[in-house]
Every structure is written in C-alpha cells, then in structure tokens.
C-alpha cells in the first residue's frame, strides 16, 4: 500500500491528490515540457541529462529508465502528463494500462467489450 492508497483506501487506485502531486511534481513538470517537439528530441538525445535538468529523484529516474508506469504512478506521475513521455518513447495508453494491470497488451484487449474501438 502506498500513502495515497492509505489516504483513500481504494484498491489498485492512486488518487492524484495534492500530496501525491507534490511528490511527483518534477516528473510531471518534465513530462509537461515534452509537449514541444524540440524538447522531445532533447529528451531522446540524452535522457539522463534531461531528467537531471528537471531534478527528478533517483527513484523517479529509475522508474523512467525501466518504463515502469505503475511505479511512476506510485511516485506521483500523473497519466495525463506522462502520456507525453509515452508518446515520446512509443508507448500508447493501452500498452501503459496493460502493463499497470500486469497483463500483456493482448490479455488486456481480450477483457474489453469492443476491442476494435481504439
């Protein structure tokens, strides 16, 4: 259980409250910058330098190195912002979601009512 789960008590859910937002501010600020093409290029050219520039903690950097979206969420990353990181790295919403559920993309899609509606 992470702190946000203790605060809210909804299993498998990380409510983005102010405490979590403050914890993940560096992640989200960095991800927000990736809305601009030149920043996406700079990130891809040197991820470590880019993360350093935004002051991410070692734990946060490691989650990004491992493309570990669940961990990134637990550390305060907000999906609406880290989708820009996903887009930079070639990870779409459903790929990210399947990984957070601990499933393959195919397994996740098989749980949907109309998997063609993507």
């Amino acid at each position, binding site marked *: 259980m992470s702190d946000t789960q203790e605060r809210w008590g909804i299993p498998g859910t990380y409510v983005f409250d102010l405490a979590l937002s403050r914890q993940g501010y560096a992640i989200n600020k960095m991800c927000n910058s990736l809305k601009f093409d030149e920043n996406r290029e700079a990130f891809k050219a040197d991820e470590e330098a880019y993360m350093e520039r935004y002051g991410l903690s070692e734990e946060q950097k490691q989650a990004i190195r491992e493309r570990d979206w669940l961990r990134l969420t637990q550390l305060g990353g907000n999906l609406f912002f880290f989708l820009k990181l996903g887009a930079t790295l070639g990870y779409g919403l459903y790929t990210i979601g399947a990984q957070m559920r601990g499933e393959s993309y195919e397994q996740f899609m098989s749980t949907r*009512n109309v998997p063609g509606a993507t």
Partner: protein
Amino acid sequence: MGKIVAGIGSSHVPSIGRAYDQQKQTDPAWQPLFDGYEPVKRWLAEEVKADVVILVYNDHGTEFFLDCYPTFALGVADSYAVADEGYGKRPLPDFPGDAAFSEHLANHLVADEFDLTLCQEMALDHGFLTAMPLLWEHDDTAWPVKVVPLLVNVIQHPLPTGQRCYKLGEAIRRAVEAYPEDTRVAVVGTGGLSHQLNGERFGHINEEWDKQWLQRIQDEPRELAALSHKEVMTAAGAEGGEVIMWFVMRGAMTERVEEVHRFYYAPMTTGIGLLALNNSD
C-alpha cells in the same frame, strides 16, 4: 432575455475524436456511437437552435499545468484555439466566443460568490472538443454556435464537491436569465462516465452504475451530488470522479426535466454516456 434551452451530458474520450477525424462513422466498432449522437445533433439543429453553448470540461495536461491550477476557469475571449495535444492539431475550426456574454457571466457569477479564474486565451483539448462535432455540424471554417468554455479541476484533489458544481449550475441559470439579450443557451456537462486510467485497476468500468447515473441525474440530482468523491471513484473509477461536471449542467436546468434522448456504449475503457434534457418547469 437569456434562456437555457437544452442540457446535455456527454463523455469525452480522445479515441472518439480520432475515429471522427479518420471518418470511421460506419466502422462496426464505432457506428453505434455516431448513430447514438445523431438524434441529439438533429434536435439541436432543428428545434433547440442555441446561439451559444456553455461547455463544462476539464483540460488534460494540455493548456493548464500544476504550477497554478484553477478550480473553476471561465473563457472570456472572442475565440478559442483547437489545442495540439501532442499528436498534431485536429482538423476542426477554431471556436467563436461570445465575449459580451462571457463578461456578463463573469460579473454575475463572481457577484453570486463563485470566484472564477477568467481566461482571455484558452486552447481547448479533447475535454472540450470531443462532444462538439458530434452535437453541432461544422464545415472547414465555422461552427453554428458560439462557445463559452468552463473548466473544472477534476485532475488534482481537492476537487470541488458535486454539490458545489450543482450550485454553480444554479448560479449560471440565474446569470443567463439576467442577460438582457435574447440569447438561447445550451449547457453541456462533459466527462465520465465510469473509467479508470491509473494503477492496477486501469480499465475499470461499471456499466450498471453508469446506467443508473443516466436516470438518477434526472430524478434525484441532489442526492447524487451529495455522494463523496471516494464513493464515486470507488464505484466509477478514479477518473470517473469527473462526472461532477455533469452537475453544473443539471443545476442549470429546472427542478424537473424531460429526457429527449439517452445513449450508452462501453466499448473499451470508458462508459460513454449521452443524455439530452429539456426543461419541464
């Protein structure tokens, strides 16, 4: 004087925008959705004939960042740009505003104790864009209605309560009715229904809850608005908590409402709801 002539609740989902832009209206996975909106589009064009739409939405990390996040923000501009959400700008015309009407709303709502952030520039993302082309016919350059965007913070808790959103709707009704021009106003509340985009529970939807919502928001909106965020998110998913934006629409309508049309479809990760309401008092 101003008059509220329609209340609409509608989900906003980026994949709907992509399907629309890629002209998937007859794709078997998407046709039910586009067909589901068609009667409301016709009703709006042929009977409602609104001059301006107040559309209640949230931004998704497009225009507003967490450095300074408004709880409620009202557009007061002559026009609003279609935002680029990182995949290129959608091929939709920018939106005409109604700055005089927005200014009236701002003056009236702040005097009525709703202390809004006022925005003279506001690029609009899928929170705003999804419903518009499904509800109003447009060509390459123009929309048939003017718009007033009203943003609600549903991203970072503390969110406003459902009751606060309902009361904001009531205040909007008073403001509209105090507007001296003969202006027909539609109010659209967007978001929901059930969905969750974070954690191990990613992809959670609750079709039963959604279907009840579409009825209860008509019959007992105050009881619904009194639910806590935790109760709503437990049932409808963390991002499902954004349904509070429908209360702004519902609060702007009369006590009793008449259902014009209802549609529900849950193909992927969001329970997509559409509800069109008429005032009956």
